């Protein structure tokens, strides 16, 4: 605060003083010069006048008598005369106020001058600067060379000048004092509001947005103050809005049903919400501010830390923390305008969902198992009856038994599918990987469906590559099931007598299989749901009431478990082509779930 005042004050003061000093000195010097000149001029005029009278007196001869008894000075009322000589045309002083120099010769260009000469000169006797005045005298006729030399002293001018300097100096000092006082006043007038302003800024800076700066000036600084107050009011509004937003965010954060953990750029835990404490206990609070390494040491957090280190991009993973707590962790990178500022970990409690899911799959599994037993018995006995192991049967009996057998088979198939789904969902669908040639597997899947195709007079064309393709790591039985499901669909939804084209080819580092039919096609609005569990298209249901909506779901799971992809192209009424690919360099079995 002091610094501002000092700086501005000193600057203003220095400016005013130096300005007035330069101005005053200039004026004073000019005045002094003018005044000196005036005085000199006056003096010279007086000298001229006096010399004229004297010259007339000399010319008239009045002085002869007087001079006998008195010196020239005695008769001079003009006190400034330093010397007074009457000089002969040859330069010899004929007469002088000082008798000692009479008869001496004057060496000056003005000797014998016929005109009045006025110029500066030096009086040799005393060395004093004088004004020399030379006037021609009419002695013995005009222009005979007689002259009157008169030295006028400039002492009075010098004295006057000294007085002026003295007086001016006193005035100047007085003026300076007044200036300083005025400057001080003005400087304070400027710096005081600035100090006020500074004080206000500091108070507002500390967060007191209610403070208003009141300035006792009417100038630009006051405008500045007003603008500042305006700015403060705006700031207050922004601040309040921001604070409100922050409170809202904070409330959301605190009351969020999921556990939230915020990590900074350096992976230090900086924020957790109360739900995290619910999950892991009160000790969790001590982990705030700790690095990932330290969090790692805290037992319940171990899983999270391992997960966190894995990846920085958005990803989800299920974590079984303990028997009665299963969490789904999602990690999202936090970005502000594309700048990575940390990561958010969301912990969603899925214990209940998991329990329900497990109960459901267990139920399905149990029910399926219970159903399988009587179906097995029916299968065995029906087949024995059909094979006439228990005695001859007539044609009608045989037909009914065949229908019974088929219906029973469908039931078994459905239950198997349900069990597969349950296993997929429980993560119990285990893959036994060996190396297999996909061509053989496709052929097996075709053979599996041969009978059904024959029944509908559908021709299956298998377009094989000329060269045998490399083997791929695969669970032979499951891949067969996956492909057979797709071929089965193609047959089911194709009209009688149609063709199904299955082709197998290599594309760079993968093998692609396509199954093309000219069947009913899949309407556009049903396409996104086609791989969903239990989904069946409306037309598909009309065409074939039997069908469990599990085939494609299972196929997709199997293919994706082999790091493959499945997709389709379809147009309603024109047919569908399913494509699926398997990478040739499929990673080892550990990566298959």
């Amino acid at each position, binding site marked *: 605060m002091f610094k501002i005042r000092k700086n501005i004050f000193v600057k203003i003061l220095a400016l005013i003083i130096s300005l007035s000093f330069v101005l005053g000195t200039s004026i004073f010097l000019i005045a002094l010069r003018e005044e000196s000149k005036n005085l000199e001029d006056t003096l010279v005029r007086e000298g001229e006048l006096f010399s004229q009278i004297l010259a007339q007196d000399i010319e008239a001869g009045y002085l002869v008598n007087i001079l006998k008894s008195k010196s020239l000075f005695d008769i001079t009322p003009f006190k400034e005369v330093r010397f007074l000589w009457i000089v002969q045309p040859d330069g010899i002083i004929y007469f002088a106020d000082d008798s000692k120099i009479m008869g001496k010769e004057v060496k000056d260009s003005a000797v014998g001058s016929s005109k009045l000469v006025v110029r500066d000169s030096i009086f040799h006797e005393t060395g004093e600067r004088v004004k020399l005045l030379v006037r021609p005298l009419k002695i013995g006729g005009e222009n005979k060379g007689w002259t009157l030399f008169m030295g006028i002293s400039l002492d009075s001018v010098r004295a006057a000048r000294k007085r002026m300097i003295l007086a001016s100096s006193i005035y100047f000092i007085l003026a300076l004092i007044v200036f300083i006082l005025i400057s001080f006043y003005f400087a304070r007038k400027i710096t005081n509001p600035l100090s006020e302003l500074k004080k206000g800024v500091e108070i507002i800076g500390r967060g007191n947005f209610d403070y208003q700066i009141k300035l006792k000036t009417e100038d630009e600084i006051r405008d500045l103050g007003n603008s500042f107050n305006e700015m403060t009011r705006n700031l207050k509004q922004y601040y309040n809005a921001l604070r409100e937003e922050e409170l809202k965010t904070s409330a959301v954060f605190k009351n969020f049903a999921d556990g939230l953990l915020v990590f900074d750029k350096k992976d230090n835990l900086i924020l957790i919400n109360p739900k995290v404490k619910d999950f892991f206990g009160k000790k969790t609070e001590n982990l705030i501010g700790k690095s990932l390494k330290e969090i790692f040491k805290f037992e319940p957090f171990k899983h999270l830390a391992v997960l966190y280190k894995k990846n920085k991009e958005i990803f989800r993973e299920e974590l079984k923390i303990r028997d009665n707590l299963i969490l789904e962790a999602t990690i999202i990178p936090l970005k502000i305008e594309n700048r990575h500022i940390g990561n958010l970990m969301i912990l969603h409690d899925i214990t209940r969902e998991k329990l329900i899911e497990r109960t459901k799959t267990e139920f399905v599994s149990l029910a399926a198992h219970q159903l399988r*037993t*009587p*179906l*097995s*018995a029916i299968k065995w*006995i029906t087949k024995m009856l059909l094979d006439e192991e228990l005695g001859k049967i007539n044609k009608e009996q045989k037909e009914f038994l065949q229908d019974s057998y088929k219906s029973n088979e469908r039931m078994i198939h459905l239950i*198997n599918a349900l*069990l597969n789904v349950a296993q997929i969902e429980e993560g*119990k669908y285990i893959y036994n990987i060996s190396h297999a040639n996909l061509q053989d597997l496709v052929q097996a899947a075709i053979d599996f469906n041969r009978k059904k195709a024959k029944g509908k007079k559908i021709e299956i064309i298998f377009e094989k590559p000329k060269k045998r393709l490399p083997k791929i790591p695969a669970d032979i039985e499951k891949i067969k099931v996956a492909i057979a499901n797709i071929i089965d669909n193609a047959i089911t939804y194709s009209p009688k007598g149609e063709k199904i084209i299955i082709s197998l080819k290599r594309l760079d580092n993968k093998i692609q299989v396509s199954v093309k039919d000219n069947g009913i096609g899949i309407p556009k609005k049903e396409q996104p749901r086609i791989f969903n569990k239990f989904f069946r298209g409306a037309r598909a249901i009309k065409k074939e009431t039997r069908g469990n909506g599990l085939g494609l779901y299972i196929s997709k799971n199997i293919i994706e478990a082999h790091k493959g992809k499945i997709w389709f192209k379809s147009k309603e009424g024109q047919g569908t082509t399913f494509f699926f690919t398997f990478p040739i360099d499929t990673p080892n079995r550990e990566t298959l779930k």
Partner: protein
Amino acid sequence: MAKKILLIEDDEFLRKVMLRKLKAENYDAVEAIDGKNGLKVAKEEKPDLILLDLVLPEVDGFEVLAELKKDKKLSKIPVIILSNLGEQEEVKKGLKLGAVDYLIKANFTSGEIIKRIESVFK
């Protein structure tokens, strides 16, 4: 001489059908309706092959299998698990315990099961 086959199965219908089939195929078939009984019959009858269900009251099929494999006199008898449990875990467990085959009942006809039995005797 006809081979003796022991069928350990708690479901009466299935047991009846399978016994009928085995007899039709000229096997000497003996039966047991639970695990405990199964072990007892196995000791008494010394069958050439055992068809073993897994879901059995009290002593389940895995325990029966383990017991059979522990008994020096019985451990050589080939056991085919014939069950409707068919998850990979169970299949693995069964084969690990020493079963020669694992058949899911619903996926095989009795004729196909006989073929599997025959292949064991070959």
